[in-house]
């Protein structure tokens, strides 16, 4: 994980550049690793690596949400998450289709990433110059967000279809409607962390750990979807991996909450007067 270097207890500020490099490299290499392993072995058992790769994109996106929304955008954090996934889904459809038309299905991840980053940058320039946001990190933030959203959709789409071919993803992910699940679950993983943790005591490590935790939940969701598209073993493995990620990062997140809260007390069940 890109946040793996931070030991709980230190509110370490991870550099945005470092997170971007880890996020991009992790997601692209992860998806390709999953694709190569699936192709070489002729199975779909390694599809879960695509879901893990998506988490790198999620962390990059969640960090960008945190940076941009720290300035206050006036419309609530969810809007920027939906923008991220909106740009991402367009980029994925374009990247897969273009790579397919040129007969090089494997290039789709790169084409998607390049288009997402260019479009994100343009939207960032529009937001600053035309809508006059004047947020210094807007261009950078939206470039990261578009790339993160695109890689999240790409990774989870691969996790469901087990292939990078346009025809397979259209049949297994888009025509079945699972793209909507990826869209909303992936959007939650990117927008929810900052939305849940924002405030004067917001800490970067807590926000990003929350992002990976929601990403684990999304992997559970794609694992359930995968039962209808992959072999049962591959789907079950993905479900288990998602659960393990969720559990590990949930406990980590809980530790960080206890670290940052002034006190954590149990309220018990409903008071007797309410029953």
């Amino acid at each position, binding site marked *: 994980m890109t946040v793996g270097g931070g030991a709980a207890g230190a509110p370490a500020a991870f550099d945005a550049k470092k997170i971007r490099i880890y996020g991009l490299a992790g997601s692209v290499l992860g998806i390709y690793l999953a694709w190569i392993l699936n192709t070489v072995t002729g199975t779909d058992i390694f599809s879960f690596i695509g879901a893990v790769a998506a988490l790198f994109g999620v962390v990059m996106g969640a960090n960008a949400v945190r940076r941009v929304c720290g300035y206050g955008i006036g*419309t609530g954090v969810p809007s920027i998450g939906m923008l991220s996934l*909106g740009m*991402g889904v367009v980029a994925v459809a374009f990247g897969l289709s273009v790579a397919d038309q040129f007969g090089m299905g494997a290039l789709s991840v790169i084409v998607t990433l390049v288009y997402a980053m260019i*479009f994100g940058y343009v*939207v960032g320039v*529009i937001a600053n110059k035309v*809508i006059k946001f004047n947020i210094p990190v807007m261009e950078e933030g939206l470039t990261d967000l578009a790339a993160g959203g695109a890689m999240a959709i790409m990774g989870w789409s691969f996790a469901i279809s087990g292939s990078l071919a346009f*025809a397979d993803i259209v049949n297994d992910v888009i*025509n079945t409607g699972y793209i909507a699940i990826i*869209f909303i679950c992936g959007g939650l993983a990117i927008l929810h962390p900052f939305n849940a943790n924002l405030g004067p005591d917001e800490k970067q490590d807590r926000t990003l750990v929350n992002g990976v935790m929601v990403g684990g939940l999304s992997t559970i969701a794609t694992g359930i979807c995968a039962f209808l598209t992959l072999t049962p073993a591959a789907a079950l493995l993905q479900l288990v991996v998602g659960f393990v990620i969720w559990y590990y990062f949930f406990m980590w997140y809980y530790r960080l909450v206890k670290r940052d809260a002034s006190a954590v007390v149990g309220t018990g069940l409903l008071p007797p007067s309410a029953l």
Partner: protein
Amino acid sequence: MNFDATTIIYILEIVVGGLLVGIGVHFVPVGGAPAAMAQATGIGTGTVQLAAGSGLTGLLSAGLMMSVTDNLWPIIATGAVGAMIMIDATMLTGSWIYAYAVGAPFASAKVNYDPITGFSQPPYVAPGTVGQGIPTICYVSGTIGAAMGGVGGALIYYPLVMINNNPSLSAVFAIGIFLVNAVLASWNIQGTIEGFHDPKFKKWPAAFKACLVSTFILALVAVIITGGA
């Protein structure tokens, strides 16, 4: 994919659709979190949720019509009606809650007299709030905005299906275009607006320019996409 006259028309349709979505958002009375607590005029949720809700309903109804006919006009009309029904139902049930559960009188803080009914507004605005509920002018404005969003959604969806013959891929792509434009427009109004009588409405040219550029980039790639297997 060769760029002939039909392709250019498709690109123009997508761009016009994106612009309608962007401008339509300015008509919908978005109140955000303050409206959810009856401390501001409008529907108590964010722009993106409302725009996405009305747009997707418009998209669904347009898709239903498109399964029957290829004629552009009934498809556009169905999209508009679907989106209008969705926003109107939201505003109507929201109004019941504001009137009978919260007990707030409907009043706009942005105008002294409702331009449609002529009713006086300031006496009914509770101190410390910027209006409550959904007054007539906001309801009418919201219906117009939903119609524009629905027409926009149908105008984006129609050329996409004509190009790639895959309704689900087109719908997903249209949702992407829709969300980008809705978010840009909602950033332009800073999250809340009452309708076309709101002073913030005068900011629409900025959203027009923003949506023009962004939709054009999206439309250029939209016409290249094929429908897969």
